[in-house]
């Protein structure tokens, strides 16, 4: 483990923690602008976090330890996920500890815990949200795995750093399989991050809410952690998408200069990605809950087709 590796690892974690709420703020701002509303400030998510960290926490009477533990676990999972995805550099000491499959497992772990916590208080909305979250999850998770497998087949590895290194160093040819997988990945990320058309992060008291239904009982510090974790998840997914489909500009091992350059490149890429996400959200309508499995099954099929294309064209 080199010093540089350690630095880039720490940088990745700090950048994730700082940039994640900013990215959410950016997306929200653009969504408001595209809808001709006056936009909140870019720093609004930080203000929300500060507000939540200053409030008194109200716990439901019979909430168990599991309920109180979950925000920390979810936050921990998301932080670790953004630490192992090569965002700035492929020289990450933590990266061998978890490959693409373990990354999917990490997201699944967070999902299971937050669903269990939603069921813990025993309210109608909580268990409803938990059920729907697992419904989204059981199709999104294999679809995500298949997208990652598409990339692993090209690079002959499930290690995230190897995938990014291989994809960054290929000649500028478009892999048809990655094209299909990219569409699948976009669909999965919309579902996983509770975005329109699958879920709406803005509403409460709507019978179609998923993510918000699960976290209704959380307040103050717990809610702050969950909100932060949600923006970390969006950040992690965006970075994963960028690393898989636009890997240029990620620093290689033993290249301190590239590491310095990687940060502005990442910020620019995220900014563009955020605008695109906002555009997708305003351009589509919220689906009925039972259309969601169809939507995700399409994503799953696309990812599998991507794998088949890989084999047919003999990439792997």
């Amino acid at each position, binding site marked *: 483990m080199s010093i540089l590796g350690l630095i880039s690892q720490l940088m990745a974690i700090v950048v994730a923690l700082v940039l994640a709420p900013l990215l959410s703020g950016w997306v929200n701002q653009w969504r408001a602008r595209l809808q001709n509303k006056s936009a909140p400030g870019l720093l609004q998510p930080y203000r929300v976090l500060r507000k939540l960290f200053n409030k008194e926490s109200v716990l439901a*009477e019979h909430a168990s330890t599991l309920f109180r533990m979950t925000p*920390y676990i979810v936050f921990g999972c998301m932080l670790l996920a953004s630490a192992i995805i090569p965002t700035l550099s492929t020289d990450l000491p933590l990266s061998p500890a978890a490959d693409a*499959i373990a990354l999917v497992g990490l997201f699944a772990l967070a999902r299971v815990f937050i669903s269990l916590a939603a069921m813990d208080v025993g309210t*109608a909305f909580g268990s409803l949200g938990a059920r729907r979250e697992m419904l989204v999850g059981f199709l999104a998770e294999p679809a995500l795995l298949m997208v990652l497998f598409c990339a692993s087949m090209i690079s002959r590895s499930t290690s995230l750093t190897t995938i990014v290194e291989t994809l960054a160093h290929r000649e500028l040819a478009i892999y048809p399989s990655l094209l299909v997988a990219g569409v699948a990945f976009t669909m999965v990320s919309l579902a996983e991050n509770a975005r329109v058309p699958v879920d709406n992060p803005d509403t409460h008291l709507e019978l179609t809410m998923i993510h918000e239904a699960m976290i209704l009982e959380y307040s103050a510090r717990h809610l702050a952690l969950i909100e932060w974790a949600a923006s970390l998840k969006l950040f992690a997914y965006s970075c994963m998408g960028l690393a898989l489909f636009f890997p240029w500009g990620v620093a290689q091992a033993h290249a301190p200069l590239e590491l310095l350059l990687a940060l502005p490149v990442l910020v620019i890429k995220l900014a563009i990605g955020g605008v695109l996400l906002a555009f997708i959200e305003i351009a589509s309508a919220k689906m009925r809950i039972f259309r969601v499995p169809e939507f995700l099954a399409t994503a799953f099929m696309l990812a599998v087709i991507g794998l088949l294309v890989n084999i047919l064209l003999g990439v792997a």
Partner: protein
Amino acid sequence: MNSFTPPSTWIHLDWVLVVVCAWLLIAILGVLALKRFRLVVTVLFPVSGAMSLLLLGLALSAAVNRPEVAVLPIGLPQLPFHLRLDSLSAFFLMVIGGVSAGVSLFSAGYFRQGEGTPPGLICFEYHVFLASMAMVVIADDAYAFMVVWETMAFSSFFLVMANHRIPEIRNAGYLYMLVAHIGALGILLCFGVLQANTGDYTFANMRAQHLSPFWASVAFILAVFGFGAKAGLLPLHAWLPEAHPAAPSPMSALMSGVMLKIALYGILRVSFDLLQTRIWWWGVLLMALGLITALFGVVFSTVQVEMKRLLAYSSIENVGLMCVGLGLSLLFSAYGMKTLSALALTAALYHVVSHAFFKSLLFCSTGAVLHATGERSLGKLGGLIRYMPWVAWPSLIGALSCAGLPPFGGFVAEWLLLQSFLFTTGLPSSFLNMLVPVVAALIALIAALSGYTMVKYFGVIFLGQPREEKLAEAHDAGRWERIGMLWLALGCVVLGLFPNQVIALIDPVTQLLVSAGMAKTVADSGWLLVPVSIERASYAPAIFLLGVLACFGVAYLLVRRLYRGGTRRAPPWDCGYPWQTARMQDTAEGFGQPIRQIFEPLFRMRRELPTSFDEQPLYRVTVEDPLWHGLYLPVAAMVERISKLIGLLQQGRIAVYLMYSFVTLIVVLLVVKQ
């Protein structure tokens, strides 16, 4: 006893027999102390648990040894019992020892007086069952194998029937016995093919025979059929969801955790050890069968409303996944790709041992819940984490492991399986190459669905508000039950965190069966689990856990630094709706509803919907297994019709029977004359 190794050396096989004898002795003591409840429960079961630990230790040290053989002069004249302890047997003895230690300790606290069969008798059946399972894996000739195999079937039959006064349980027991015997027929015929007309039924002779591809395939299919019936492969799975809920919980734990694995041992023994040829389509067949079984099992387990049935279907799913691993290994092995074959086999065996631990743990937890509340229907449970924390937390570990989540045992098995699928692009057949992404995708889907099932299982039983008032009086598990469950939970954690050490134990088995292993690559890589090379893939559960814990710590410290508010308890908010009751929570039916809707064609559903004019509206949905109506009942009806036809011959009058003899005689004479 004459063994081929010199008696001065440490002989593991002898000690395994000592454990078996000790179990039989405990069994007999149980019968003698039929009415003395305390003796049976607080002395015999813990002693048996200690024996299990001894067996575990023996198996651990025997794993790397060369095979030991012995001949026991029991049984028929000229037909002694041949025994052999090789690394495959040692691996399965490890599973038996490790799991039964936990289950026996749990049983010490589980049994109550005056429930069905007296504990002394259960103690007898239980230990005969354990002893016969241990004997199955060390039997080295067809005769000994069948004797102990049937002993296993019978003793478990009586365990299933422990509460025989209930008609449903008698039916379940009957079905179990029936399928067990159909399976046993398959196994018997398989051994008949394997000995290739030599008349010598020792396994050593079978290994020496080189069967033609046709007969080898016949033997393989018979073995898959026979052992598959015991393992719960489709379509002979129907006994499993009936027998598991019927049996007392520790028995279900043993049956699901260990006995199903013994059936897989049979498939392994025949197809990898006794048969010398391997044909590629065997692997495809086993893979397809396993995949269908797994998908069927997991979809059905998500819609169950009874906790033990849910777990039983989940066992079907897991057995299916193990078969996928075995099939893939056979496929690689048929093409001579030894390292990859070893990888797939390691994945399957890893799944065997981790499923053994987490499923026994989950079944034990259902037992504890059942005793505390008297309820087995998920719809009447809830909120037990507050009254039974000693049951809830270990079963959370079991549920997470079953859901295949890192950093627990189930995930490592799944990870290895998916890794071995990623290597299939090297297969020389393009048809198989096309098949593989589909299989990998389905495995990912199955794993995700099992997560759904486990959230339902744990969430509905232990979380939320109690759905019945009496649940508030539920008592936590007793001392022995806690120890047993903690042991099993420890197994799940160790399997999750130290995969390299476990793989080092699996390595001798893969060396024996496919002459390759992962121990070398694993040993070079320290804390990382590396299947082939570090560039291809790596996973380090210990570092992973440390990472999650570190992030957990970062979060906690951040909160401690930043947070300035206090904490207050208040009624749940729930978007401000007033008067919420426990009945407004999602029920078990409700939780399974999306899956019911998505996979509707798979089920045979009956709905009773109320109309708006009903005085007492009733809503009911029952989900049934389509194979039961589509396959089992027609076959049963056909058998009945055939036996009625045969019954026509039996008139019960002696004159008619004499006439039969006369006609037969004339026919025989005619034939002989020609």
